[in-house]
């Protein structure tokens, strides 16, 4: 990645030019000749207890926010409670995790436990990076009725369970109470409808405050668009996930509404990565459609006061972007069954401590836990529990993120004024539908 990382002699440069291609080849090196060992935990215990020899487990995830600290705390607690198992946790950027983990698993250096989103699980299952863990689910006595259908289905691939649902994380309305006060708005009554939202924006505008910054990037403009799409009655994909449908009237209305916020001066033009959220914390932006994972950070702020509420209803019905973290067990090359059993026990232990995990800024995946007093009493999290019935999840289809990326491109182009919403969405949907058909051929 470094600009001059290839030391070059004058004679060797041709070879180095070839290395551009070679880099891809290197990335592709690996033990593809090894037979698939798609074996999950099979022992009768499968997570309910661990009586094997002392083992050390590697746990990889992408909890890069404040949630990483919580995960670490829980891992430490697990390690002290369970002398025979030592878990080492490694945190990566999610995007890096999905480059590293498959390569590591293929070469036999993969972790023993992983966490993933439901839209990653089918891709990784199809590529045999992770193994089925039905037995762990059975031992945990997970019941379909305890979970949102998408969360339950999201851990499945081809009728086998690969993911144990850990949490639900979704979008909420983060607003700056100090700016609300300044504009004469009731800081305890954030807007809940389109009319209230626009009225609040006008009041803020009269005090020279641009009240709702629109990010052109996935975080959080792309997530805002998806929420609006569902609010206007649309959906990302056709029900059989063969066609992208975000260029429907609902999609165009949703994106047009976002772009109009910019055009009418409620948002600055050209908002950079994360600038919407940073400006909220700097008391420059009044309202931000932001992820639950930031709750711990904003509640700790002393320089300004941030309120958290459920997303306002801009369209005709409730709609909130959400996703779910699930535990997975990466395929192991060795025959060390005690490691697999230990990993299953760790996963079970973590799930049983779901209420603690919620404190990291998550809604528990288990509906009963999400409704419990233990959860709703956590500062800042109650609005998210109320939203749960409106949360929509990405579909669990192998390679789906290749298609969804096109939608983020469209949001970027439209919000930055490079294309009008309808044509940006249409172009992206057409490309995404092609990707879907390619992927269904590839992953079968």
């Amino acid at each position, binding site marked *: 990645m470094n600009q001059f990382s290839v030391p070059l002699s004058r004679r060797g440069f041709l070879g180095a030019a070839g290395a551009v291609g*070679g880099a*891809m080849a290197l990335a592709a090196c690996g033990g593809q000749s090894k037979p698939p060992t798609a074996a999950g935990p099979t022992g009768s215990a499968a997570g309910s207890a661990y009586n094997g020899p002392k083992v050390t487990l590697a746990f990889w995830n992408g909890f890069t926010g404040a949630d990483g600290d919580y995960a670490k705390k829980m891992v430490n607690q697990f390690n002290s409670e369970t002398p025979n198992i030592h878990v080492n946790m490694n945190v990566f950027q999610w995007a890096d995790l999905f480059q590293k983990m498959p390569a590591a698993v293929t070469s036999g250096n993969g972790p023993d436990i992983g966490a993933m989103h439901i839209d990653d699980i089918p891709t990784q299952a199809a590529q045999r990076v992770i193994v089925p863990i039905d037995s762990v689910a059975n031992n945990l006595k997970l019941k379909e009725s305890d979970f949102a259908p998408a969360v339950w289905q999201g851990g499945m691939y081809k009728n086998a369970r690969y993911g144990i649902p850990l949490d639900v994380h979704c979008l909420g309305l983060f607003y700056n109470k100090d700016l609300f006060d300044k504009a004469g708005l009731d800081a305890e009554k954030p807007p809940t409808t389109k009319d209230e939202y626009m009225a609040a924006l006008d009041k803020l505008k009269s005090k020279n405050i641009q009240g709702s910054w629109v990010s052109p990037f996935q975080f959080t403009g792309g997530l805002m668009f998806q929420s609006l799409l569902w609010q206007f009655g649309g959906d990302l994909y056709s029900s059989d996930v063969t066609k992208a449908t975000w260029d429907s009237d609902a999609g165009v209305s949703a994106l047009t509404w976002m772009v109009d916020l910019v055009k009418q001066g409620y948002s600055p033009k050209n908002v950079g990565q994360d600038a919407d959220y940073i400006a909220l914390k700097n008391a420059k932006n009044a309202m931000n459609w932001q992820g639950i994972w930031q709750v711990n950070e904003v509640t700790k702020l002393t320089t300004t006061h941030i309120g958290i509420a459920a997303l306002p209803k801009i369209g005709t019905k409730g709609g909130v972007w959400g996703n779910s973290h699930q535990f997975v067990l990466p395929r192991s090359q060795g025959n060390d069954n005690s490691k697999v059993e230990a990993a299953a026990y760790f996963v079970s232990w973590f799930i049983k401590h779901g209420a603690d995990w919620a404190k990291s800024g998550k809604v528990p995946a288990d509906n009963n836990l999400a409704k419990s007093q233990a959860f709703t009493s956590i500062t800042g999290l109650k609005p998210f529990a109320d939203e749960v019935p409106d949360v929509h999840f990405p579909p669990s289809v192998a390679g789906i993120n290749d298609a969804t990326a096109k939608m983020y491109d469209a949001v970027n182009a439209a919000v930055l004024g490079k294309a009008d919403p309808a044509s940006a969405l249409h172009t992206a949907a057409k490309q995404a539908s092609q990707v879907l058909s390619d992927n269904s051929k590839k992953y079968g």
Partner: protein
Amino acid sequence: MTTSTVVRATPRVSRRAGRVRRSGPATPYLFLAPYGVLFVGFILLPAIYGLWISLHDYDYLLPHQPWVGLRNYTDLFKSGSRDGADFWRSIRATVIFTVFSVPLLVTIPLGIAMLLNRKFPGRTFFRAVFFTPYVLGVAVVGVLFRFLLDPTIGLLNFYLGKLGLPDQTPWTTQVPWAWVGLVGMTVWWTLGFNAIIYLAGLQEISPELYEAAEVDGATAWQKFRNVTLPGLRPVLLFVMTLTILASANMFGQSWLVTKGAPDNATRTAIFYISQVGLQQYRQGVAAAMSYVVAIILICVSLLMFRLFRQRDV
């Protein structure tokens, strides 16, 4: 000019017979062997393997890699194919970046090297100052400049506003400003490396040549034109070639600072190839695109050598 070192290094003893043989026919090859092993193992074989990959619908994680022949290549030239338009747009972005960054990265470091080649107090300190940014990794520089250049909350626009200048310039989210930002940060980051190479080249030029020029009454410009530049020619070719290749491989800066915005206008070729190969798990197409990029770079480099050679005549 470069031959002077070779003359000096020729050993006088080698012709005497009857002594321990200091060199055999295999000697040069043995000395080359360590590099040869690395070259074959990490460049040649992977490159050939990459060619093989590019002929398949390749995902190293799947059990079957269907043979597709040249389709990964021909698709790139077909309108309406999945990657064609995006790929050539990313090549265009790479060309724009290279065309604007290379002249700056070839000339500014030369000026700095000439300044740093003079004798003045604190010279070593300034040499370190100019080289220091290069030590930083792209991740550090990228995050740093993302916040310096941010259009709404960035430090640069903040201070421009304080000076009464426009304070809304979208340095990371609109072209052409994003290119100004990306080229600017790259120049700041990497000029130290080129300056050091130039400095080494300048120190190779014999002071007698400057003295002779002065005796002939040459002005400073004439000395630069007739002594410094010719003396630096091999170094110049090296720096040019290296900078073009490095700029053509630009990835980290736009990945971190612009994320390709707006509308993927700053998504470079390597950026796109990495998305296809490592995020979409389509290594076959990615390898094919890498080969197209490699062929373009080979052509550009050959052109460079030809240009410099013709001037020699």
